[in-house]
């Protein structure tokens, strides 16, 4: 068998020798007038941050309206006000002590390596609406996904303290939007592009991916000046495993009928680790899980126990872009499952370690970002279909809402297949193509409401059919009231 690793456990001297080419261009490639006038930029930034806070307040207010919201959500609420979260202070302190912060996008950056080097990983994919216009000044493509433009706009306007704190950002080459975004961002910060193989289960893809992760390791070590040792990596893998265990517990709790937690809250809980200290998150998520387990025992429903059970699928929904989940739940649906990369997807297939030796650990850690991933940037992506079918069954899903961000072709491209396979299981699916703006809310509401009615009507019909079947077996009359 060919050796996958050229070297064993790295040591400091290797690090000194490892030359990491500086990928930053010496002069900016893009001219951006808005960035030159600092005073006006500050003003713009203030306006954007103000509006973003209003948006966050708006959704939080809506979410707090749930009649019996779990008390443990309080901590997540506080952290969700991320533009003024106490986390910012923690990160500033970390940086003042010489610590580094590394931005990530999507779900491909090896977080364990970042943490093992004592750096803080923060996911920078943005859900802010009002930075899009600024992003468009450098990426004017009208057909480009709003998440990409929003993320760029956040950097250009210095709106997010997490972006500002990042010493570098890891950008995976998953879709056209992301890799051109990485290019433009190079004018603003250090960018580490990562090649993600789109056909992933070949030997070439595996070894290429391992090389990519090894290169990242070097970049991380050079930036932080910290070598990553066996002990630290093991510690961080174990932390990830602990986090996934709690997340899995929370995931299973959503199978409860009636539901014990709202879909919006679940989504928020799953997104909090994007910026938080994972070990702190584990504590709070555990408290939440205990509270929810108690609710299951006591039979306390968070919303209408008869609400149609909806699964949210498709393109990422990033806090505070909660337009779609808000619409679904305010129209009377209950989101009991999601397969979003900004939702539960990060907990699929925990890192499997047979033996805690460096090579095995490293390989298992790296591979878990690739092999179990069902991101539509891969082809063929049959496992995603299989996973969705399984979730429909496990969570007793009655309807799927498939979210497409306009311009996200990879998610749109898979929508027909997902729809057909949901329908094969007798579950209807609504495809919603939208952007971040609130403009289309009322039109979408009409669709969502009609869809929920459709789901209810199907449920009624199924119940009737069941009663009829029962009657024929039973041979007796009656029981069919309506």
């Amino acid at each position, binding site marked *: 068998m060919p050796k996958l690793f050229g070297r064993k456990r790295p040591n400091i001297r290797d690090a000194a020798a490892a030359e990491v080419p500086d990928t930053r261009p010496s002069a900016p490639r893009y001219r951006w007038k808005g960035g030159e006038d600092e005073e006006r930029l500050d003003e713009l930034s203030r306006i954007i941050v103000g509006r973003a806070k209003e948006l966050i307040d708006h959704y939080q207010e809506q979410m707090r309206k749930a009649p019996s919201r779990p008390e443990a959500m309080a901590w997540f609420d506080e952290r969700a006000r991320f533009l003024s979260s106490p986390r910012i202070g923690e990160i500033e302190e970390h940086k003042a002590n010489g610590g580094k912060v590394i931005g990530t996008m999507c779900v491909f950056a090896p977080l364990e390596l970042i943490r093992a080097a004592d750096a803080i990983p923060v996911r920078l994919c943005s859900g802010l609406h009002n930075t899009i216009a600024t992003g468009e000044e450098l990426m004017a493509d009208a057909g480009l996904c709003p998440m990409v433009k929003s993320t760029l706009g956040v950097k250009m306007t210095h709106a997010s303290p997490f972006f500002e704190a990042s010493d570098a950002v890891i950008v995976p080459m998953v879709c056209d939007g992301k890799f051109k975004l990485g290019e433009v961002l190079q004018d603003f910060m250090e960018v580490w592009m990562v090649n993600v193989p789109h056909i992933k289960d070949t030997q070439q893809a595996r070894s290429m991916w391992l090389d990519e992760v090894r290169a990242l390791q070097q970049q991380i070590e050079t930036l932080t000046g910290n070598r990553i040792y066996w002990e630290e990596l093991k510690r961080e893998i174990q932390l990830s495993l602990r986090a996934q265990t709690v997340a899995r517990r929370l995931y299973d709790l959503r199978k409860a009928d009636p539901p014990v937690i709202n879909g919006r809250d679940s989504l928020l809980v799953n997104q909090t680790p994007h910026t938080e200290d994972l070990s702190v998150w584990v504590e709070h998520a555990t408290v939440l899980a205990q509270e929810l387990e108690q609710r299951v025992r006591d039979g306390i429903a968070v919303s209408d126990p008869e609400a149609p059970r909806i699964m949210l699928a498709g393109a990422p929904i990033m806090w505070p872009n909660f337009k779609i989940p808000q619409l679904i739940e305010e129209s009377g649906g209950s989101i009991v499952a999601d397969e979003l990369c900004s939702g539960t997807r990060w907990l699929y297939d925990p890192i499997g370690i047979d033996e805690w030796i460096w090579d095995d650990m490293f390989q298992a850690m790296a591979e878990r970002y690739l092999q179990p991933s069902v991101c539509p940037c891969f082809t063929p992506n049959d496992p995603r279909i299989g996973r969705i079918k399984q979730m429909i069954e496990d969570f007793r899903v009655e309807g799927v809402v498939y979210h497409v961000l306009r311009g996200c072709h990879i998610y749109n491209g898979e929508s027909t297949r997902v729809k057909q396979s949901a329908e094969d299981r007798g579950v*209807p699916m609504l495809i919603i193509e939208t952007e971040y703006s609130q403009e*289309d809310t*009322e*039109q979408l509401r*009409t*669709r969502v*409401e*009609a869809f929920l*009615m*459709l789901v*209810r*009507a*199907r449920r*009624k*019909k199924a119940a009737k059919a069941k009663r009829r079947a029962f009657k024929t077996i039973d041979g007796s009359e009656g029981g069919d009231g*309506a």
Partner: protein
Amino acid sequence: MTVTAGVDMGSTATKALVLVDGRIAGSTARITGADPERAGEMALKESLDQAGLQLEDVEYIVATGYGRRALELADESVNEINANARGAAWLGSSEGTVRTIIDIGGQDSKVIALDEDGVIADFVMNDKCAAGTGKFLEVIADLLEIPIEDLGDISLRSTKPVNINSTCVVFAQSEVVSLIARKEAPADILAGIHRSIASRVTTMARRVSMDRVVVFDGGPAKNKGLLAAIEAELGHPVVVPRHPQVVVALGAALIAADMLTDDGGGA
């Protein structure tokens, strides 16, 4: 005597219908204008007048349509897709169970597929752009200075429909201006416009349903030229109810009646 009413608060027109013991006793349609609530009240009053009834006689009122929340005297509001399905399924068709509804409204168009029991199976909507909606027809009628009711008859006289390339209303408008300048016959221009709308909505229809029993409703369904164009695109006949504009209001009135019986209503 059970009296219920449905009020369809559309973007362009407001429709009301009164149902007495499962029979249509009165119905009206009027321009929505700037005050939707008043339009709704007026439409309801006119339908009640036709039926010889007073507001107090009505046991249950259901509002529907984009402006449904504006009508305070309604007891309940329902989604217009459901109301449309209910109304069209109730009217039925001599061809068999209604399985597909094409609805063209003032500012949107939709296609609803029903299953064999009249329950909604799927739907698609175009509410992003005015192409394929009543608005498009209005704009063109204005340009050609032809009353909107006459569009259908005139277009049926066309011998050689023009090709309209733009699907966007704004661009189509300038295209029509240049067609007029080129002295194309209004009949041919209109036939081209109808064809363009028909091709848009039938593409939507094919996405949700291939069933042949198709009902076409909404105000523009009164346009015979548009109907002919849709039939030509689909390749089979399409049923238009006698009063296509009030099908959604009818559905709302039927749902109101359902709500009085304890079934709880719904599609």
